[in-house]
Structures are given as C-alpha cells and as structure tokens.
C-alpha cells in the first residue's frame, strides 16, 4: 500500500466514524451536552488556588492577638481540619449552639485572633476586587474533607431542631414572587433555563449538589462559599438579605447537609 492509499483508508474510516456520530446524535439531549461540557472542564479547577491561599491564612498569625487559627476547634478537636467539614454543621459546647463552617470560623477568628465578629461579617464574600478571608479559609477547610463521607449528626436536640427549622425555612413562601427554596428545589428532573435543578429533599440530588459546594464559579471568576450560595438563592427568590452565618442560614445549611449524608464530599467544585 502506498501513502495515498493509506490516507484514503484513513479518510474512509474517519468518514464512517463521523457518520456513526451523526446517527447517534438523535439520542443526545441538551442535558447530555451540558454534562459533556462539565466533564470537559472538570480538571484544572482554579479553586485550588483558594485552597492554597486559605491554608496560608490558616497558618499565618493575624488579628489584634497576632495568633494563627491552627488551634481552632472545628468539632473534631483543637487544630483538626481533616474531615471536619464532612460533619458540619454541628453543635458546639463552648458556644452552646449549632454552627456551620463560616459561623465557626468567625468564632475562631474572634476568640483566637481577636477580630471583632462584626468586622468579619462585614466582608463575608469575595468580590472581583478582593477575596474575603473567611471565604478563602472555608475553601481550604472544605478541601480537607475531599473523599470523606458526609456524616452530619442530628443526635443533639439542638442539631435536630436546626434541621427541622431548616426544613420549614426551605418551604417558606414569601416576597413579591411567592417563592420559597422549594419552588425550584422540591421537584425532581426539572431545570431553570438550561440548568438542571437538584431536588434537595431527595438524597441523590442533595448529595450531588451539597458535596460540590463551595465551588469556583466560572461566570464570576471567584470561588464561592456555601453561605454565598444561600445568599444568592435568596436574592433570586426576591427575598431581603439573610444575615451572614445567622441562625436562619445555619438551619438551612443543616437541612441541606443532613439530606446529603452518606455521600463522599467532593468539593471545592467547578460550576458554570
């Protein structure tokens, strides 16, 4: 076979392959195409940079007390970061309340570093101009639970209560559009515009959704925390703004996290 024959064969093979691809296209849905897109961008997540920056922040002395956060107790003992996020939110004895990650980080930044809580709550989310310390710290902490199974407890009465209150807030319809979380997140197999919506009452969907937050948001070029995720949901619900790391957002986080129990934590994620 000479070279021109070889190229003819290659050409025919390629044509045959593309014919098969076209024939198969009839069965490809837009959801499949979006899944294909997500798969293609899944490697190379810029949230890795926030994990690195968060680790530096965790270890660097700061605040009026010039102390690091290395002694912060995230629920598994002083300084234990590995696997802590997979068990949060949880009840903390020292504060006598249920706290999510950001709320707990705020406690540690306050008690260990001496930074006033109001000062932290004033800069809860990253912006194009400046990353938020607490959000960056959260990205580092969640990364240390990668691959660990979600096991959020509802054994303590306050944990159980937070879950129940979270469920009620989830179904609370109000505002000019009559929306609640459940307007979009209580039905399986529906989408808004092009985006599939997880049914957060169902384990399979809740697991996939919860374990992929915090996430680097391509459209914003920023890594977003779970508190941000809830905040922006309320914006789109046409609600007023939920206070950062408040009992309301902690309860909703509890509801989402418990429904995701049993799944391996997979964040920080990468989203459109």
């Amino acid at each position, binding site marked *: 076979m000479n070279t021109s024959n070889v190229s003819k064969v290659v050409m025919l093979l390629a044509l045959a392959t593309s014919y098969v691809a076209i024939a198969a296209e009839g069965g490809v849905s837009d959801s499949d195409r979006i899944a294909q897109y997500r798969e293609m961008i899944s490697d190379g997540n810029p949230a890795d940079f926030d994990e690195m920056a968060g680790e530096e922040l965790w270890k660097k002395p700061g605040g009026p007390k010039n102390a690091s956060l290395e002694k912060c107790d995230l629920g598994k003992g002083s300084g234990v970061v590995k696997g802590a996020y997979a068990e949060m939110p949880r009840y903390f004895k020292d504060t006598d309340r249920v706290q999510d990650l950001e709320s707990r980080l705020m406690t540690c930044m306050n008690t260990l570093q001496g930074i006033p809580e109001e000062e932290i709550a004033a800069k809860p989310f990253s912006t194009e101009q400046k990353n938020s310390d607490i959000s960056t710290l959260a990205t580092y902490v969640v990364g240390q639970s990668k691959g660990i199974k979600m096991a959020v407890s509802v054994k303590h009465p306050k944990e159980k209560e937070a879950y129940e209150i979270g469920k009620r807030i989830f179904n609370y319809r109000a505002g000019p559009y009559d929306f609640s979380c459940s307007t979009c997140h209580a039905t399986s197999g529906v989408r808004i515009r092009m985006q599939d919506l997880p049914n957060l009452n169902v384990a399979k969907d809740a697991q996939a959704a919860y374990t992929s937050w915090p996430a680097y948001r391509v459209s914003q070029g920023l890594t977003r925390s779970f508190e941000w995720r809830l905040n922006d949901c309320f914006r789109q619900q*046409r609600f007023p*703004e939920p206070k950062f790391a*408040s009992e309301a957002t902690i309860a909703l986080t509890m509801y989402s996290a418990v429904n995701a129990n049993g799944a391996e934590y997979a964040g920080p994620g990468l989203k459109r």
Partner: protein
Amino acid sequence: MNAKLIFGMTITLSLATAMPVQADSKSPYLDAKTAAIIKRDFRDKGIAKADRVNQDELQVACSKYRDDMPDGTNDMPNRTKVNLEEKQLKSIKWPADGNFVGDWKAGEKLAQSGKGMTWSDKADEPAGGNCYNCHQLSSKEIAYGTIGPSLLNYAKKHGSREESERRAYGHIYNVKAYIACSNMPRFGSMGILSEAQIKDLVALLMDPESPVNK
C-alpha cells in the same frame, strides 16, 4: 402588594427561651420559632426590604400545604383551595378596553428577561417576565426551563380565541386564581408587570406569527 395580610406580627416568642422540644414535622413551637428567626435574620438590601418576609394569607397556606405538585402529593383541603382561589380571582383587574392583546415582539423580549425585584435590581427599571426560566416558548430557544409546562402552540390548545386570550391574561395577572399554590408569581396582582406588559405577553402566546405558535 394589595390584598396583603401581614401575618407573623403577633409572634412574641422569645428566641432565648430554652425549651425541650420534640422535633417533628407538626410542631407549633417550631413553627413559631421559625417565624421569629425569619423575622430577625433578614435585613433590607437595595430595593428588597426586610418586610418582604411577612407572608400574606395565600403564602401562609401554601408554605404549609402543597398543591399542584407534579408527583401528586397534594395535601391542601379542597375547601381551603377553592376559598383562596376565589379571593385571588377578585384581585384581577381586567383591561378596561376589553382588549387583551399587545405586541408579541415586545412580549418575546420580556419573556427572555429574568430581571426584576431582586436586591441587585434598581427600583426604576421595569421587571422582565422571567418566562423562559420555567417555560418553553419557542422551538428555536434551547435555554428554556421545565418548572412550568411547555407553552408551544398555546393559541391552538385553549378553546376559542376570546377564551384563550382571557385565560392567558388571567393566568399571567394572577395564576393563583386558578391554581392556589402554583409556583408562578402573581405578575399583575403583586405589581411586577404592568397591564401593557401583560398584554404583550398575551400577544406572545396568541399571535400566529410569534415563536410560540410557529
């Protein structure tokens, strides 16, 4: 926001009260505590004022019961549902000129826009219709939601022309007059869209030249 009954104003429960609770789905204590937390934990931002969390009668009922669920888990007593729908129907202001139809091209633009009434929107900017978020309205637009039914070929599906126009106007103005706890906003009754905007959307649904019916 006419017809807005402010609930939750009389809750006097102190959040600091430590009370052993039996946490379950039917607990007046937890209901009251949730209401108090919601009142306390939301604040003004931009045009979205804190009092938006106050529910009207319909919102209270539809937070408690589910109605019109695709999976069939409707648990609202029928009498409650009918009662709510009758009240909502009264809030619909039908066009004085008896004409329901505007410009479908303006309607298509409105249908594409998801803007309106969030804390990042401005007070003087008119809201969009948010239609494509939940409905299919064109066989050419691939980015459509499925929370609501597809509205393709709407004009051919709902009886005579007059009936269809009236039905479309009423559903956009206040869908809750027909389905008490529908997921869709009450665009007219809640002052989200003007009469003229609603007419443009009716035109989008009804005009034979619009992408809905092409």
